[in-house]
């Protein structure tokens, strides 16, 4: 159950990365780059943790 939820969370974080890029395209704000980094960091952390949980 937890494994499935972690994979679902990973999918949601991928969607968020893509959506952030699209939002930044619609309105290019000065702090947009920082947010992009934040979203990517979150995605990478989720990816690593999901991998650990799924393998464990």
């Amino acid at each position, binding site marked *: 159950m937890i494994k499935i*939820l972690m994979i679902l*969370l990973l999918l949601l974080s991928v*969607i968020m990365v893509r959506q952030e890029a699209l939002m*930044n395209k619609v*309105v290019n704000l000065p*702090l947009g780059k920082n947010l992009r980094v934040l979203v990517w960091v979150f995605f990478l952390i*989720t990816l690593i*943790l999901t991998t650990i*949980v799924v393998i464990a």
Partner: protein
Amino acid sequence: MPEIFDASKKEDDGLVEVKRLMASGKYKNDWGSLILSPQIKFESQNEGEKVIVLGRRHFITNLGWICLICFAFFVPFFWNEFPLVADVDNNVHFFLTILWYLSLALFAMQNFLLWFYNVYIVTDERLVDVDFFGILYKNINVTQIRKVEDVNYSQKGILSSFFDFGDVVIQTASEQRSDDVFGKGGEASPFTFEAVGNPNEVVRIISELMEQEEEEEYQGRTR
């Protein structure tokens, strides 16, 4: 010979309201609810079109989900109080805690992104209302300043009076059908700047732009 009309002068005359507010030194913060002359670009921006105001919901409107996250942060400290969770082994406890905090982070980031990118843009030619409803659906309304008929604002409740934010409703000549009005948002007009900071200043700036546009139309100038 007297000078009747000089087209080169039209772009430099700036708005009195904006100059006055800029002189006060406020409204420069990139995280703020009302930003004057921001260095931004947007998707449908025309060449030479100047962004005068960038607005978004007041930060205090995020209070609800921030409180919810603060409360949810402490839930894993009491896992053993939940009958179903108390019975599982330590490994599952650990993974459940990771899942819980990742979900919280995702929830916080999603809400933050929606707040940050739901913006209202006033340029010297147009009004742009960018609305994102959830992370998979967006609605963008654009109108020319000359099509604006009426501007008003309302402040409801204690928080809006205390922190000085409110809804700026802009009525346009066309009866535009938009998801803002008929869909999920349920706004009074497609051009509703919801919970924007210092709504009186926003109304003043838009009114001045309307006057300027009328004057230009009267003089036969077009942008």
